[in-house]
């Protein structure tokens, strides 16, 4: 018994050398996870490309030229071809990436901005506030999530901003639940009790003791959520309830191109494939980040 306890003590990562070795091993694990790394690299590349698109000398994504409409990919000057109004599809796909990434990220941040504080306060204070918050999330979760977004858009009317708000609201319960659960597991830990003993106020404890412990979870939840929200917002735009034409947003490009699916399928294939590629790689990157932060969490 005693021997085992001693050997376990020795296993604790006390010295900086051990910690360093652990960090190296987690780096090695990332390097071994080639798929995840490729996904993360791809996402960073797409973000760079998408935000550099105004400087790449591409045609205006809104400039119409009906004399060259529905040209297939490989046409000179239009590597991905043109759409029904003769607009350059490469340029539109890249500009569409701006909207999709921005919408996914903004909706996610909005959901975090509301969900994380609510979950923290609800989990830390408990009591009546906690049960009100929990019953409200129960009610919201009683709806299938796409339906909930549709309810909000139905009431507020179609449009980019309303779609963003709708998608953000449908994701608030998720963040509230996750963060509340984590707060419940850490609220009686010594470092929090120490803060209370030192006379820290509740807002200070939430900000200085609890929030830092939640950051890794928030980061992973954000990354895995962005891809999901890109699918959701593009879905609303596809239905005509989000971004409106002629904005080059992937979902509304799909909706606009649908009429020409029989004669020029590339008008549909390109924006859809862009959504797929980005979300696919975001998921890979999210898994990678989760593994990485898990390692760090174990070391704490």
């Amino acid at each position: 018994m005693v021997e085992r306890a001693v050997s376990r003590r020795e296993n604790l990562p006390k010295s900086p050398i051990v910690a360093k070795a652990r960090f190296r091993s987690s780096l090695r694990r990332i390097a071994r996870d080639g798929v995840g790394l490729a996904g993360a690299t791809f996402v960073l590349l797409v973000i760079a490309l998408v935000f550099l698109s105004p400087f790449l000398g591409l045609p205006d994504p809104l400039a119409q030229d009906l004399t060259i409409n529905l040209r297939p990919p490989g046409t000179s000057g239009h590597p991905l071809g043109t759409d029904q109004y003769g607009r350059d599809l490469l340029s539109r796909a890249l500009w569409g990436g701006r909207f999709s990434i921005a919408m996914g990220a903004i909706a996610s941040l909005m959901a975090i901005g509301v969900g994380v504080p609510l979950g923290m306060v609800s989990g830390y204070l408990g009591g009546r506030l906690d049960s009100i918050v929990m019953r409200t999330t129960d009610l919201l979760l009683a709806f299938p999530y796409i339906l909930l977004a549709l309810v909000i858009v139905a009431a507020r009317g179609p449009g980019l901003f309303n779609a963003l708000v709708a998608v953000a609201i449908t994701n608030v319960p998720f963040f509230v639940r996750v963060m509340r659960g984590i707060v419940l597991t850490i609220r009686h830990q010594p470092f929090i009790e120490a803060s209370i003993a030192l006379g820290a106020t509740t807002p200070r404890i939430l900000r200085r003791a609890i929030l830092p412990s939640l950051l890794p979870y928030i980061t992973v939840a954000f990354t895995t959520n962005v891809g999901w929200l890109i699918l959701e917002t593009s879905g609303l735009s596809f239905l005509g309830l989000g971004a409106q034409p002629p904005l080059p947003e992937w979902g509304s490009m799909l909706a606009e191109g649908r009429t020409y699916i029989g004669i020029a399928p590339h008008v549909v294939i390109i924006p859809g494939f862009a959504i797929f590629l980005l979300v696919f790689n975001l998921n890979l990157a999210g898994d990678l980040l989760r593994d990485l932060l898990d390692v760090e969490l174990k070391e704490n």
Partner: protein
Amino acid sequence: MIWYVVRRILAILPISLGVSLLVFGMMHLVPGDPAIVIVGPNHTPETLAKVRQDLGLTLPLYVQYARWLSRAIRGDLGNSIHLHRPVLPEVLGRFHSSLLLVVSSFALAIPLGILVGVQAAVFRGSTIERLLMAPTMVGISLPPFYLGMLLIIVFSVKLHWLPAGGMFTVTEEPTIPDILIHLILPAVALAGAPFTVVARMMRASTLEVLRKDFIRTAQAKGLNSRVIIWRHVLKNAVIPVTSFIFLQIGYLLSAAALVEVVFSWPGVGSMMVQSILTRDLPLSQGCVILIALVYVIVNAASDVLQLALDPRIRYG
């Protein structure tokens, strides 16, 4: 156990009340005057005043809610603004098409997902596993409306095998084989995501069960590996996945809207999207109530079914 079932069924009531609150709230989330939204843009002052009085917009909110609810319970969800007909029969008239689509997708995705997940776990680490799991890597990132359009491009535009939309050939009397042919592509498009989720969870759950002692016992006593997998492993691996399987119905019910629009399928989902675009609030409310209530009932049924499936669960 019987008490649990009774309690679970009674729990439908408060949840439905919550649903009704939210749907009632839709009317008051509308920017501006709800009465103008209800009567539409072409109204006379008289009709506007009448609608205001009918809705009781001058009364306190809880009185308005009570009136609205008592009408809704009696099946009066108001009149559609654009169809000029009562909402309830319109929505119910679309319901069977949506149900057909959702049930077909469910029947397609779940058994296939279970099969693929179990086989992937059994052949862990082999090429077979990679081949089986590759579609699930893709499936989770593929929006259903895009999958639907890809299917149209391949099977309707290029191969001319299957129709690209609608529920039956318009020029002819609808027959069952004709409807089934129109059903294939939308059902597959909608089934993609639930299939992915179930296959992944089933694989993880099967791997878990394969490590258990009773499986080693079964192997040691010389049982045929097929018997082990399909009798001992499958039964135990499915149980933790059941709740996720039923969660898929919520996804199917609401994502059906996307697929119905792609395939011009005459269901509740496409009606709802149309009603939102035309700002037909009563019709939107009717669609929401129907989908949400079906979801609430399915959830209760799934909890009860889980109890029947898993004898280990003992509820207080």
